[in-house]
């Protein structure tokens, strides 16, 4: 039996579905999909998905682990909730997409250069620093997330917008040096740390 054939045979085991059910946020719901496709048709970024949600669910059932987890697709979710609102089977698709993206990222399988992956991570990093988002720092880190030269270009292109925002007092350069934050950042840190710890304990050892 060729490797290829062996792979095809192996993938139709249900293992990946079980992995998703165990480890992905709201992953239990994947099995409830009936392949109507209303989610795929409802997505505002639909045309940019290599594999729309309903197809991802089928791929999960078909055990296409690599293809799913390294996919660019779920990073296309804009969190518009159209899919959830319309899904006839009550699947929390937005959350499953977020869950898959997060899981893929944790496993290191998500595409490294995926811009939303980078942005989303920076957003998180930004907010946990002080407990509140620092829009300026987030913006700056965003501009430079593709490297220094790219960042300068992006920043230059966005400069008029930044200036406009500052003029409208909706962006302050002072934010870069301090800005808003929670007072009890120690408590918040402890909470997040604990939460992360609980979650880590739950993750099965599928990361191979």
């Amino acid at each position, binding site marked *: 039996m060729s490797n290829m054939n062996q792979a095809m045979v192996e993938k139709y085991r249900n293992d990946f579905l079980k992995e998703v059910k165990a480890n992905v946020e709201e992953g239990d719901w994947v099995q409830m999909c009936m392949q109507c496709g209303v989610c795929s048709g409802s997505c505002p970024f639909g045309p940019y998905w290599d594999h729309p949600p309903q197809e991802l669910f089928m791929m999960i059932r078909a055990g296409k682990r690599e293809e799913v987890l390294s996919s660019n697709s779920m990073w296309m979710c804009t969190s518009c909730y*159209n899919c959830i609102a319309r899904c006839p089977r009550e699947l929390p698709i937005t959350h499953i997409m977020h869950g898959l993206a997060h899981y893929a990222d944790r496993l290191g399988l998500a595409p490294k250069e995926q811009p939303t992956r980078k942005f989303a991570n920076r957003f998180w990093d930004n907010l946990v620093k002080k407990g509140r988002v620092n829009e300026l720092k987030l913006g700056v880190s965003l501009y430079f997330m593709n490297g220094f030269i790219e960042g300068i270009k992006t920043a230059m292109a966005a400069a008029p*917008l930044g200036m406009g925002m500052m003029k409208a007092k909706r962006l302050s350069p002072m934010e870069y040096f301090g800005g808003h934050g929670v007072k009890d950042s120690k408590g918040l840190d402890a909470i997040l*740390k604990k939460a992360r710890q609980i979650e880590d304990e739950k993750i099965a050892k599928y990361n191979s």
Partner: protein
Amino acid sequence: MSKKEYSFYPGCSSQKAASASNYQTSVNSMCDVLDIQLNEIPDWNCCSASIGYAGGGELPRLALSARNMALSEQAHAGQDIVATCAACWLATRETKERLLHDEALMKETNEALAAGGLKVEANQDIRHMVEVLIEDFGYDELGKHVQKPLEGIKIAGYVGCQTNRPFGIAGESFENPKYLDKLVETLGAEPVENYDKKVSCCGGALAFSEPEKSQALIKDIIESAYDGGAEMIVTPCPVCQLNVEAYQDNINAKYKTKFSMPVVYYSQLMSVAYGKSGKEAGLDGQLIAAKKLEDIAGK
């Protein structure tokens, strides 16, 4: 009507010098007229919005909102939590529903909160400001305070996503919610009937990471408003507001359009109609000046 008090969750973008600070200004003015007292949740934190997932994952993300709820329960027991930001409202409300729906999750969340000395029961209603206006006041009541009807302005009610789905405003449909139109009418302005992009997505947070794809969506939203004869767009969501207002230059450059469509918050319309000044209505925070509103406010 007597004073109404709510436990208030302003959210990051409403802070001073943040992207929706003008929203907050107008909300304050509006509340002043309606005799609403907003009690800010002490030491609230970011909800992580809908983009925090990549770094945050499930439980840490829920813990963020749970912490806010816990703080609110402590400080403002018996009050509903009110948010003005769609993402804040959604993240908090989702957290509440998940915690109530899933005992194990509630337990884990409290385990995490305990590390910060907190405990959550998720016993307060989580409401968007628009819900408060419609349900606790009603259009008739809101209309009573109008001093300067917004006559002669045609406004497209852009509801967007997260104030609309998955929860939405009671009695409204996901596909064609009419509350902004009704509000616009209440204030004396003219709504754009059948504004067909009223619930289309603006790209949300992906406006940053996928600007071209998002701006294509935003272009349709603005174009459709122009098609409907709108002179202005009104929205209940800071992300919608920023995305639709801020990228018009980029869109004009790319698509050779000549968009210059003011995008305001419902609270700004209300503040002006209630007789507040342009500054009180946060109109100085517009990137694209809402001239017609300024004119009315200036009268």
